[in-house]
């Protein structure tokens, strides 16, 4: 089940990479967050970790529902462009994504026999970090960059839930708090016409 969700997580992220519409991107992000939340719930249930269950719930509520919605509202209000053509050609992206995956597995190889957990989780987290970065790289518009940043947050969470079996509650709350603050700041920043970056 866990592996299945992780696979789904990665799949949604990769799909997001190839999306060229803003709302579709938000949708994939929301799905991505949803899998993450489910993952937390599943692992939390297996470990009987209440904190993690809570985190899962908050993740689903906040990341899968609230943030995509807020972003959608913001994009409407500030008239952000809904066309988000990727800056990197698809041919390159097709090569890059597997390359990143292979690389992260190679990277995680030395730790595979050392920790009790699954080294592949670390590898997948790192690769989703890279993929989110790639998402930021390939778009010049602001909105996809924000989504990229948010999915980076997701990659962190993935690492937190899978590799460490849950971080301290305090940290997770802090991260959520900062996420909210980021949204506020983004809102403030958007108070001007969309910048071409």
């Amino acid at each position: 089940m866990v592996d299945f969700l992780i696979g789904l997580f990665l799949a949604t992220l990769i799909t997001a990479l190839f999306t060229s519409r803003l709302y579709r991107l938000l949708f994939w992000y929301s799905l991505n967050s949803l899998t993450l939340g489910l993952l937390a719930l599943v692992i939390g249930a297996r470990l009987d970790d209440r904190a993690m269950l809570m985190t899962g719930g908050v993740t689903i509520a906040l990341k899968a529902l609230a943030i995509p919605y807020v972003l959608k509202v913001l994009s409407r209000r500030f008239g952000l462009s809904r066309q988000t053509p990727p800056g990197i050609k698809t041919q390159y992206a097709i090569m890059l994504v597997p390359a990143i995956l292979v690389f992260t597995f190679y990277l995680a190889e030395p730790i595979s026999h050392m920790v009790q957990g699954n080294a592949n989780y670390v590898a997948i987290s790192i690769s989703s970090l890279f993929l989110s970065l790639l998402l930021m790289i390939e778009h010049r518009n602001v909105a996809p960059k924000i989504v990229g940043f948010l999915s980076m947050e997701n990659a962190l969470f993935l690492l937190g839930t899978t590799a460490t079996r849950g971080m301290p509650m305090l940290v997770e709350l802090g991260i959520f708090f900062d996420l909210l603050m980021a949204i506020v700041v983004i809102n403030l920043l958007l108070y001007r016409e969309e910048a071409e970056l």
Partner: protein
Amino acid sequence: MAFLFDPLSVLFVFLILLGAVPNLFYSRGYLPHIERRWHYRIHYFAFILSMLGVVVAANGVTFLLFWELMSLTSWQLILTEPEEEGTIPATRFYFFMTHFGFVFLLLFFLIATDGDLEIGFAQMHGIVAHFAYPSLLFFFLLLGFLSKAGAVPLHVWLPYAHPAAPSPVSALMSGVMLKIAIYGMFRFFLDVLYPWPLEWGILVLVVGALSSLVGVLYALSEHDIKALLANHSIENIGIILIGFGMGMIFDTLGLGILSSFAFIAALFHTFNHMSFKSLLFMGAGSVLHETHTKNIEAYGGLIKAMPITAWTFLLAAVSISALPPTNGFLSEWMIFQSLLSSNTITDMSLKLAIPFAIFALALTGGLAIACFVKAYGITFLGLQRSANARHAHEVNPAMRLGMLAMAGVVLSLMLFAPSYIRLFDIALVSLGRVGAYDAIFPEGIWHMHSVAINGGVVSPLILLASLLAVTGLLLYAYRALGVKERLHRTWACGYRTGPRTQYSATGFAGPIRRFFSWLYRPQEHLHRESIPGHESKFTDSSYEVHVRPLFERSLYDSVAAAANWVSYWVYRLAHFEQTRYAAMIFNLTLMVLFSYRIFAHEFSWATFALESVVMVISIKVLIIGEKE
């Protein structure tokens, strides 16, 4: 114990005082000429004090502190008159070079003291003896001191910085400050870094020989009187280094007394150079003060208006040209003698190297004479070449007093050479050398012997007395003859002699410049207004020659060009980050993780090659992108 008063320190304190006290008078006279007087006063006295501080410092901290203070105050002193053209770049260069040297001294101290800069020199010797790479320390010291002393190839700042300073400061810097570096060499080579391999001595010798030649050659091509003198400082530092290098070589070969002799020669020349170079700079400063130009071509005939300046300058010029019976001759004689003492050496490489050093020194001597004939003749003799020179007067009493006092120092070095040599001997003995005084003056002070077997002898006092006696007799005879004298204008083949028909400094140095044109690569600027239709007839013509020193062109300019080039490319690279920051971070992360994986975990060439390929592709795709 931050301070130390052993004979060597006291000797150099003496040197500084000898150089500074006449300078005080001169400076007093010069002061009305300066706008920012308090700025000048504060830094001037701090400068002198800092020099004293350096020579009496007993540990690394004190030494470096005063050394730096010396650099800073001299830097500010040069900046006393920042409006003058060329001062700002010159000071910048000076400031940079002096800290260039400072850094190496710092490194030396860091290593030689094991990080505890407060230990004394004697303890440093113990640490140095256990250091694995003594040559490294040697190079640190050499770079540190020689950049201050202005030896080739670290000399380029000197002809810029010294002329830019107010004249009393030029005198102090050139006369005294450079000697602080020599003090450092004595202190640290003899006290801390001892003993040496043969190569070190040879290196110092070669640097000295090169400096002396390069200095005098560029002095000859110089039209700025202070730059000319500054170039001569390079030459004289070279001569001192030849003596020092010979001392090191003899010491390595176990010839103790010869080594002491060479060191004494170096010390003696250090003192001599202090005296006559200070005097020369004071003279040049007086001339500059009156004519408001440093261009030697605008002088002429100043001996009539400024007799005291002219005659004291002559004394110094004769002395720096190493003509008997002056002190300059005596020290150079000693250095020659120590070079000649090498006939007892069996080492073949030395046998081949030393004749070259002799040749360099001898050529230097010949060229120095030519150069000072030029400097003196064009400045003080003949007709005034410009209105400025025509309106010149003798300088004020304080400045005159300063020059006369410094002339007194020169004379004292000539007359009391044995006493001075006694002092040098004491200083060297205190550093554990063999005493050489008794060997130099075995039969009283009348004859000065070379300590080598079959070495030469010179009798400065007898020589002086006989020269004075013969000249006096001739003069007396001339008076007795009662010849009538008549004034008449100079005959010039029917033309009227005027300021413009005289030989110029450019012309004077012409033959030598032409002979060394492969080195000088002079840039000639000939400007001529011809009468229309007559190619050979012209109304107006000017000819100028500029020589940019080889080292400056090849070494320094190329470094500057390289820095410019690198910075241009770095800047272009840095501009990627404005638009591709995420991609930069992406690649960076990739690279760091890859490197950790490969270098920190298990290394294999295959993975390394793979990483390189991946990185190159990823950088190409993500950062550089395609041309749009």
